[in-house]
């Protein structure tokens, strides 16, 4: 018994001594190699997939070997940190620490060389472009969310009762797979404008002309252009709301609905008094999620109007301040404002988490 255990231990030590340096060399070597972008794209991709998978697994494997050299009691104490360690370190570097750093930067001047007090925040709340951005963001939050949730609910209710449930859902859901830039191009084409008399190539203006109206530059006139941008967002997000709400509707008890109908309740009453209250939780979740998306969406404005004609929103202003005007102070301050706006959701999520029994 003792001999066998010694044998096993020797084997473990040998494996650790051989494998750990090997995996460190592969990890660091791959990192340095990839940093210099020396290969063609296809080779880089293949190399990265193999290197990435191998490095991650090798990291856990060799750390596990090292910890196994300790007695079992120590092993059980250390091993959890081996497993959560990489994730926590990466999340810390990419999300947690940057939050603090951005907060600090938001009180500094444009290139972070001197303390600027509340200057950046004063700018955010007084500048006229920023005021437009705030106003428009509120429009996005209100109308983007309301319409996406409403249409999602409407289609979910219709799909349930129709003969084309699956196809209908897929078609409405499809835009979720399209990028905001792609959606931007799709809708820019819908909104395309040609002067009076020319053949309209944009569907919307063609319809207007067909009904005897004058073609309009939909994206060029404030404040209505904001709504034409929001339509794109609604078009993208309705599918999400449909899918979540349709799943929730499946959970509403048939028996209660049936009982109400037998008692003489009209279909509309059943909907308002039974169905909607029972999926209330899902409606709140969907609304919150879509609001978060509206708050952070920058792509649509950036690729459609670049913030011109009074269409600026907070997220697009943030990008511009950072990367066009290179004002890190103001850029960070806007990021902090966006963070403050989502903080109620963070608080709510943490409260829900606290209720969970598993922890």
């Amino acid at each position, binding site marked *: 018994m003792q001999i066998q255990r010694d044998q096993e231990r020797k084997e473990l030590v040998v494996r650790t001594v051989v494998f750990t340096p090997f995996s460190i060399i592969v990890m660091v070597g791959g990192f340095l190699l990839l940093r210099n972008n020396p290969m063609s794209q296809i080779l880089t991709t293949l190399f990265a997939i193999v290197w990435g998978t191998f490095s991650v697994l090798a990291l856990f494997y060799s750390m596990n070997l090292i910890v196994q050299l300790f007695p079992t009691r120590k092993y059980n104490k250390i091993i959890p940190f081996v497993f959560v360690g990489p994730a926590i370190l990466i999340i810390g570097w990419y999300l947690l620490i940057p939050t603090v750093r951005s907060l600090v930067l938001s009180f500094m001047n444009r290139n972070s060389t001197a303390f600027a007090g509340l200057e950046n925040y004063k700018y955010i709340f007084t500048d006229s472009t920023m005021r437009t951005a705030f106003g428009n963001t509120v429009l996005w939050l209100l109308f983007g969310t309301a319409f996406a949730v409403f249409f999602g609910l409407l289609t979910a209710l219709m799909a349930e009762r129709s003969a084309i449930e699956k196809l209908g859902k897929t078609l409405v859901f499809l835009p979720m797979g399209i990028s905001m830039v792609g959606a931007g191009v799709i809708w820019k084409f819908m909104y395309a404008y040609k002067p009076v008399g020319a053949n309209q190539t944009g569907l919307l203006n063609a319809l207007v002309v067909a009904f005897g109206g004058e073609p309009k530059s939909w994206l060029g006139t404030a404040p209505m252009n904001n709504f034409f941008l929001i339509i794109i967002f609604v078009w993208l997000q309705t599918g999400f709301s449909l899918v979540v709400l349709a799943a929730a509707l499946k959970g509403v008890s048939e028996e209660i609905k049936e009982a109400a109908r037998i008692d003489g309740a009209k279909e509309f009453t059943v909907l308002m008094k039974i169905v909607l209250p029972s999926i209330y939780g899902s409606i709140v979740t969907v609304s919150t999620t879509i609001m978060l998306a509206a708050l952070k969406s920058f792509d649509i404005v950036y690729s459609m109007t670049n913030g011109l004609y009074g269409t600026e929103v907070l*997220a697009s202003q943030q990008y511009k301040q950072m990367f066009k005007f290179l004002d890190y102070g103001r850029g960070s301050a806007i990021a902090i404002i966006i963070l403050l706006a989502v903080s109620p959701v963070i608080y709510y999520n943490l409260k829900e988490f606290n209720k969970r029994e598993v922890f």
Partner: protein
Amino acid sequence: MKGTVKMTRSAKIITLLLILFCLVWTVPTAGILITSFRDSDAAASSGWWTAFGNLKDFTLKNYDEVLGGQRFTVGTAGGGTAARRGASMGSAFLSSITVTLPAVIIPIFIAAAAAYAFAWMSFPGRRILFAMVIALLVVPLQISLIPILRDYQKIGLNGTYLGIWLAHTGFGLPLATYILFNYISTIPRSILESAFIDGANHFTMFVRLIVPLSVPALASFAIFQFIWVWNDLLVALVFLSGGGQMMEVVTVRLMNMAGTRGSDWHLLTAGAFVSMILPLTVFLSLQKYFVKGLLAGSVKG
């Protein structure tokens, strides 16, 4: 109700209304798909809905130009001219693949390992660390851009594929850990216990049991992350811009096309379609997993 039994009148009306709604939802995409196959003159002078009246106007040339880069002639030093091709959607497509696949694969095992520890091991700080993951689920990634960009400039990761993989890994990890935790914590305790009695250590457990058992959850996250990374514009603009035109991904390329060739609808629509084809294929064929990922937590920053 469906198929065999006759539909009620209200079901018929609802079906009709839904068809109408779907039509409105699909027409914009159909418009660019049709235009992308139309001759440049036809696309510029008439609406795409008239395209089927003139079938000879259909062409594949737009895709050739978009995928291979637009042809133009430049003067050479000797006084002659040479044919060149500009930046193309073809190379952007390759670049997007280069960005996306590792950015999907690298976070998976890191997140799975963390989820395993959170679900099945007890250690000091477990609660507070998991609370951190939950809190960071919805933190807008805008908050990280400037600090991370500075770090990247210091260590030479700016404008490299490695840098953007790591960035997407960092931004995707909270969601990945959360989805995988929800799944891994439901694995029956008895399965794990019997493996430990057989003398397995945590690494063998993880590779032999946890990962194979979690495949559905891994797939959900993978699909979600794939579509998210492929369609991302912001992260690519910030961390990949230093890498030059060859590294541009499809979303950035398409945005630039919309800026410079804003009225060349025959090219722009073809470009848009090239940028959409892969995520839409993945999306349609693996919709089930995507929906699961979405339901599990679509609140990514």
